[in-house]
């Protein structure tokens, strides 16, 4: 088993009712698998995934401070101690 920390931002805090959580997982899972596992209710699934079952484009996932889109991103294997952040495309500045 490995342990990862998931940090939640913006509306995802309300959705999950917390700011961060630690999760124990079997080794060999990808970031996208973790996100599916987190979507354990219809409401959460709808917030994270489109009808076509792809992650909504306005959701940004970071693994250890780097964006997890693109090659090796969401498909990359998660490791023990990883910090996965979930936040919405945010405007500001």
């Amino acid at each position, binding site marked *: 088993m490995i342990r990862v920390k998931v940090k939640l931002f913006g509306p995802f805090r309300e959705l999950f009712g917390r700011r961060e959580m630690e999760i124990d997982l079997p080794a060999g899972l990808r970031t996208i698998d973790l996100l599916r596992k987190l979507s354990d209710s219809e409401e959460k699934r709808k917030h994270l995934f489109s009808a076509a079952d792809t992650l909504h484009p306005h959701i940004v996932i*970071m693994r250890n*401070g780097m964006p997890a889109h693109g090659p090796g991103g969401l498909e990359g294997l998660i490791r023990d101690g990883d910090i996965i952040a979930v936040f919405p495309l945010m405007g*500001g*500045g």
Partner: protein
Amino acid sequence: MAISEPSWGVHGKILDIDLASGRITERPLESDLVRDYIGGRGLGARLIYDLVNPSCDALSSDNIIVIAAAPLIGTSAPTAGRGHMVFKSALSGGLGSSNCGGTWAAAFKSTGYDALVVRGKAASPVLIDIRPERAEILPAGQVWGKDVHETTEELLADVSDGRSRVLCIGPAGENLVRFAAVMNDRNRAYGRGGAGAVWGSKNLKAIRVSGDKKIRIKDRARFESGREQSFYLLKQAPATKRLLRELGTAGLLELINLINMLPHRNFKDTRHRDEDVERVSGETLAKTLLERAAGCTLCPMACQRHTRVGDKTGEGPEYETLVMIGPDCDIYDLEAITRVNYLCNELGMDTISFGGTLACAMELFEVGLLTSGDTDGLELRFGRSEVLEEIARRVAFRQGIGDILAEGSYRLAESLGHPEFSMTIKKQEIPAYDPRASFTQALGYMTSPTGACHLKGGYAVSLAFFSGPKEIPRFSLLQSPVAIRNMHNLGIIQDSLGICRFTGYAFSTEPWARMMSGLTGADFSTARLEEIANRIAAVERLFNLAAGMTEADDWLPARFSQEPILVAGEERVVSEAASIKMRNDYYRARGWDEKGIPTPSLLDSLGLKMREFP
């Protein structure tokens, strides 16, 4: 060709006021200026390039202020109410170019003018009062010395027509603080570059406008199709649909901390305790001080924060204010930051440069270059939120240590023989994103024409997170230059259209191209908008070059190449070699030579000529 009759989208008139002679004239807005520069930032840059001697002293009567509306202002296009002010900057000595929301610009355009030129210096404090077919210079001695709120209220009470709007300076502008702002709707700021000091140097206290002039739309169906598309898209993207309303710009704070980009102690590092950051986050602000969110003209996003601290109400803080006066000064006291934000609004002072200058002074104090003897006993150490309001007042009134802080951090640190403590580019304070945490961010700041700026080079890290398939890696030497040119160009287009940057979180230029083409009946395709942006960038560059700037001014302070920060567990700097490479590639992507000078063939293709200066 001059427009003799009101045309589509514009009134076709520029109001030209010489405060020295009192002469008020009207001249036609040439139609090719609209075609080639649109309005706002582009039109202002062109007029300033034509009218101002770039080597003049920014605080002398030779400087000129242009305030430009834009064709879309006066239509129902979303957010179309942003004015743009262009001048020679009191801070950088190069181009000053500042954008503002609120309601003033729409009221100005309804007076029947597209742009205003203000020259010369009045013998005593004045107010410019503009109504359709009538502009006057009135004495303003009764409000000179009063703060922004008092001035606004008094000047509105004199007219009580319900639709007048006031733009004015506070004590900071009167006292020529180099980062003084011009304020609109009491709390919205033309903040950066020291426009307020230029007003103060001209004895110009306020401009009041009121009108009912409408503009005409050439092809309403085409305009409406673009407008409907834009509102639809604004209601789709979460940032524009609800997050800016719920959290304001401060919603970014925890995210920027997460990516190791949140400045700390005058950009010494980006290390904060998460629980400290939470105390000043957008969520905490929303839960504690926020009374209501509100929007500028025609804005469905409503990022304005109307807040209360104790018995005082006001606007703010925004992300930049919060971070520069907060964590960058090692301060995490939300109420104290909000209170000094209110005070800066009343005094008429840019909160970014104020925060950056204060952080610099705190570091100078900690290393012993400033002592309590210099500060009249004030302990200017990091983390001391209790000094904030006192320092803001001293700066605005140039009392004691405030007199040198009012010059901005570059002149402050240089006067002590240590300019390396000033976190500025082109002498303007860097806003609240650490450039070591992203190459796009570093290059965006370096090449911004007005110096480090949150709008003309800021938040470039978003390219690494929010661009989906077009994403630019955080540390890509190869991709950053073109990405930053494109980002700068989008900003130029938005500022010249008179609309808000935040629409960019929902869509790029296509809906605007349709609205502009429908409004004017002319071709404003996305390709045409891109060409216009390249022309405006070249004119802004030509002004800076003529003002004496060189490629050496497109450069980060040494701290960012010498002192690493930790980003995602790795030490990061922006090395000098990386800066040189990205800067050269940016110039090349722009069609400028290795010294950053637009090439003759580029100027030729844009229909531009290098101006001769005396």
